[in-house]
C-alpha cells in the first residue's frame, strides 16, 4: 500500500556509485508492483473485493555529477493503480517529485584492490499533482511531503562490493477531503493527518564485472508509529506500514555503447504489516551524457 517511488529511487541514492564531474545519467524506469495478499495489521489475508492490486509506474530519473563527490538525483514518477476485482475505480497521475543530494564524505583505498567510501544523502519529495491519498489501496501515493537523510557505507574489493545504508524520514501532514477519521483507536475531527516518521535500512552484496552489475539486497522499512488496519477496514494513509523486502538487481552497460545502460530488478516483500505481499518487477534504460 506504500507507493513504490522509493524503491526505484533508493537504488541510486543508496548505492556506492557516483556520477563523475559534469556527467548526467538520465532515463526512464518502468515498474509493476502487484499483490493479492496483504497484511491487515499482522494478519495476512486476501480480499475478494480487491482481487489483485496492480501498481504500475513510469518514472523519469536524472543523476547529475556536480563534481565527482557531489551528485544531484531527481525523480518524477507517473503512477497508475488498478484492482482486478470489486468496483473501485483505478487511479492514475503524477505522484511525488523527489530530489536527493548525495555527497561522498569519505573515501579510502587501504590497498590497490580495495575501496571504502561513505556517502551522506539529503532527500526531499513533494506531491506534484492533487491526487487523493485517502483512497487506499488505490491511491497513487500518500500525499505527504518528506524530508530525510541517509548514510551509506560502501566497500569494494576487486569486483565484489558490499553496501549498507540507513535513512530516516520526516513526513508532513496529509490533508484529506473529509473532516473526520478514525485511526489508531481514536476519532479525529479534522481533515489533517499527522504522519509518523519512517526509518529504513538497506544492505546488499554485489559484483561489477565486464560492464555487468548484479546485486542482492535486503530492505527493512519501518514506520515509527501509526495504527493498524482494523479487521475488514480499509487501509489508511497514516497506518504503520512496515516491510522487509529482498531484491535482485542487474545493470548492464552495453559493450559497444557504454553510455547506455539497462537496468532490471525483481523484489519481493517477505514480511510486512499493513502493506501488500508484493512482487515488483522493474526495468529501466539510462543514458549518460558528458558535458
Amino acid at each position, binding site marked *: 500500500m506504500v507507493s513504490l517511488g522509493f524503491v526505484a529511487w533508493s537504488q541510486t541514492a543508496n548505492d556506492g556509485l557516483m556520477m563523475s564531474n559534469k556527467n548526467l545519467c538520465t532515463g526512464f524506469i518502468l515498474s509493476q508492483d502487484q499483490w493479492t495478499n496483504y497484511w491487515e495489521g499482522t494478519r495476512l489475508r486476501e480480499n475478494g473485493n480487491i482481487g489483485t492490486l496492480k501498481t504500475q509506474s513510469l518514472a523519469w530519473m536524472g543523476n547529475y555529477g556536480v563534481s565527482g563527490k557531489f551528485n544531484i538525483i531527481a525523480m518524477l514518477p507517473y503512477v497508475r493503480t488498478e484492482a482486478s476485482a470489486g468496483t*473501485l*475505480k483505478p487511479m492514475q497521475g503524477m505522484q511525488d517529485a523527489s530530489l536527493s543530494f548525495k555527497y561522498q564524505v569519505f573515501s579510502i583505498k587501504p590497498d590497490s584492490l580495495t575501496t571504502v567510501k561513505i556517502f551522506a544523502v539529503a532527500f526531499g519529495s513533494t506531491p506534484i499533482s492533487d491526487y487523493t491519498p485517502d483512497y487506499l489501496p488505490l491511491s497513487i501515493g500518500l500525499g505527504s511531503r518528506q*524530508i530525510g537523510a541517509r548514510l551509506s557505507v560502501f566497500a569494494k574489493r576487486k569486483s565484489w562490493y558490499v553496501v549498507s545504508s540507513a535513512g530516516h524520514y520526516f513526513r508532513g501532514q496529509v490533508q484529506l477531503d473529509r473532516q473526520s477519521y478514525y485511526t489508531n483507536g481514536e476519532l479525529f*475531527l*479534522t481533515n489533517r493527518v499527522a504522519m509518523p516518521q519512517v526509518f529504513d535500512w538497506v544492505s546488499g552484496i554485489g559484483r561489477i564485472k565486464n560492464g555487468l552489475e548484479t546485486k542482492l539486497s535486503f530492505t527493512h522499512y519501518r514506520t515509527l508509529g501509526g495504527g493498524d488496519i482494523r479487521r475488514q477496514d480499509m487501509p489508511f494513509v497514516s497506518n504503520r506500514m512496515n516491510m522487509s523486502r529482498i531484491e535482485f538487481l542487474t545493470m548492464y552497460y552495453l559493450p559497444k555503447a557504454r553510455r547506455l545502460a539497462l537496468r532490471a530488478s525483481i523484489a519481493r516483500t517477505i514480511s510486512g504489516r499493513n502493506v501488500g505481499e508484493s512482487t515488483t518487477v522493474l526495468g529501466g534504460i539510462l543514458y549518460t551524457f558528458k558535458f
Partner: protein
Amino acid sequence: MKQQLLTSKYWLLLLVLSFVSCEPLQQDENFAPTSIAPPTEEDAVNWKLIPGAPVSNLAQVSVPVPTATTSSDYAAELETIRGLQKNLSSEQKKIIAKWSSGGVLRWNRYMRELVARFALAPAPLLDGTYPTPDAENPFSDPVFPFSNPPYAARAYSYVSVAQYQALQVAWFYKFKYNRPAPHQVGEGIEALVPKSTLPAYPSEDAVMSAVTCDLLKVLFPTAVEEITKMAAEQRNAALWSGKASPSDLSAGLALGKSIAALFTARASGDGMRNAIGTKAQWMVLADSASVRLKKIGRDVSKEVFWKSQDSPVRPPMLPFFGKVKGWILAPSDFTNRRPGPPPSTTSNEMAKELEEVKFYSKNSTRERIAIVHFWADGLGTYTPPGHWNDIAANYIQQEGWSEIRSARAFALLNMALHNAAVGCWEAKYYYFNPRPTQLDASIKTLTGLPNFPSYPSGHSTFSASAAKVLTYLFPEGTEQFKAWRDEASISRLYGAIHYRIDTKAGVEHGSLLADPLIDFAAADGADN
C-alpha cells in the same frame, strides 16, 4: 559577512522545516469550557413530552425528598466537598474543565467515536460465509455491534431521547424541591464552573451519566470499561466543582438508571433483533418485490432485482430494519410516506439514468472526488447520521444552551435520523432495486459500494431529514443546511453508486418523514 551567512543558514533551516509542516494537529471540536452559566431554563418543566416515548409522565419515576441544607447530614456532605477542593490535582481540574463545556455535547462526541470504532462489517470466513455479530458474545470476531448507518441512527436516537427525557424528569424534581448547589450554600466551597442558580437536586450530571452509561453498555458492550469510567468522571467533575453534593449525585444516579431501564426495555422489543433476518428470509426478498411490482401492473419477467456484489456474496444489510419501531410515527405513517416505485430496470428512463451514472464514473474530476469523499461516511466512520450530529454539535456549542435544551436538539435530530433509517430501509427492501454497477459492470465507483438495494438513497434521506430539523432549530443556517443536504445527496451520484432518481426520491422522502417531528417541536413549548 559572517552574520549574513548565519542568517541565510537559519532561513534555509526554516524553509526545510516548513516543507513538512509539523505544527500540532487541531484534532478536536472547540469544546472550550463555558465562561457564562447557561440559562436555568425553569420553564422546561412545562415542555411537552415526546409522544409514545418511554417517559409519558414527569412523575413516572419518583425521586425522594432531599434532606434540608440545614441538616447535619448535608453539612457533612459539604465538609466532604471542602476537603476534596483543597487537594484538587491538575488532572482533576482538567476533568472539570472538560465537562464544563456541556455533558450533552461531550457524550455526543464520544458516541460518534464509538460508532466509528464499530462501523466495520464482519470479515468473511474461509468457507465464504459471514459470521453475524453476536450481542451475547460481543468480544469475538466479528465484534458486536457492526454499527452500520441504521444501527448508528438507532443508537444515537436512543441515547439522545433518553438523555432528553431523563433531564426533563430531573428538571421537574429540581424545581419541585429547589435545593441549591453546594457552592451557593456551603461556606468556603468554590464554584469551579460558572455559577448557576439551577437547583442541584437531583444532579443533572449524574442523571445524564447514568442514563447514557446504561444505554451505551447495551449498544456497545465491549466498551464497557471506557463508558463506565467516563460516566464516573462526569459525576466527579460535578462533585469537585462544587456543583453537586453526594446526595444530589446519588439521587441523579438512581433516576438516570430507572429511566435507562425504560429505554432498554423499549430497545429489546423494537424489532431490531429481527432486522438481520434469516437465510430463508433473504432468499425470498427478490420474489416478494417482484410480486409487489406485478400488482402495480408491471411486466416483471425481465426486471432485474438487487444482488450483493461483494465477494464472497454478503447477506443484505439489515433487510428488516424497515420494521423497527420509529419515534412519534406509527408503522402506517412510514408506509404512507414511502416513495413511489422507481422506473423499471428495462425502461428507457432507467437506461438514461444509468447513462448519467456512467458519465460521472468515467469523468470523475478532483472536485467531485472531494465531494464524494467528504460525504462518504462509509465503513470505519461515524456514518451519515454521525456526520449530521457533528454538524449539529458545532451549532449547539455556539448557542451556549442549557443541558436540557441541547439534549432536546439532539433528540429531535436523532429521532429524525432514526426515522429516516427506518423509512429508507423499508423502501429499499420494498423495491429491491439494483445498484448501477449491477446493471452495467463497466461502471467503476469512487467509494465503497454499499451492500443493500439502491432506491432510494440513504444519504439523501438522512440528509434531508437532518437538514429539516436543523433548519427548524437554527433558521439562520437554512441556506447552508440545504446546500449540505444537496451536496451529500448528489455525492452518491458522483461516486457512481446511485442513480439521480435515488437521490431525488431520498431527499423528498427524508423531508416528508421529518415533518411530523417539526410539528411536535413547534408545539412542545420550548420555543415559545
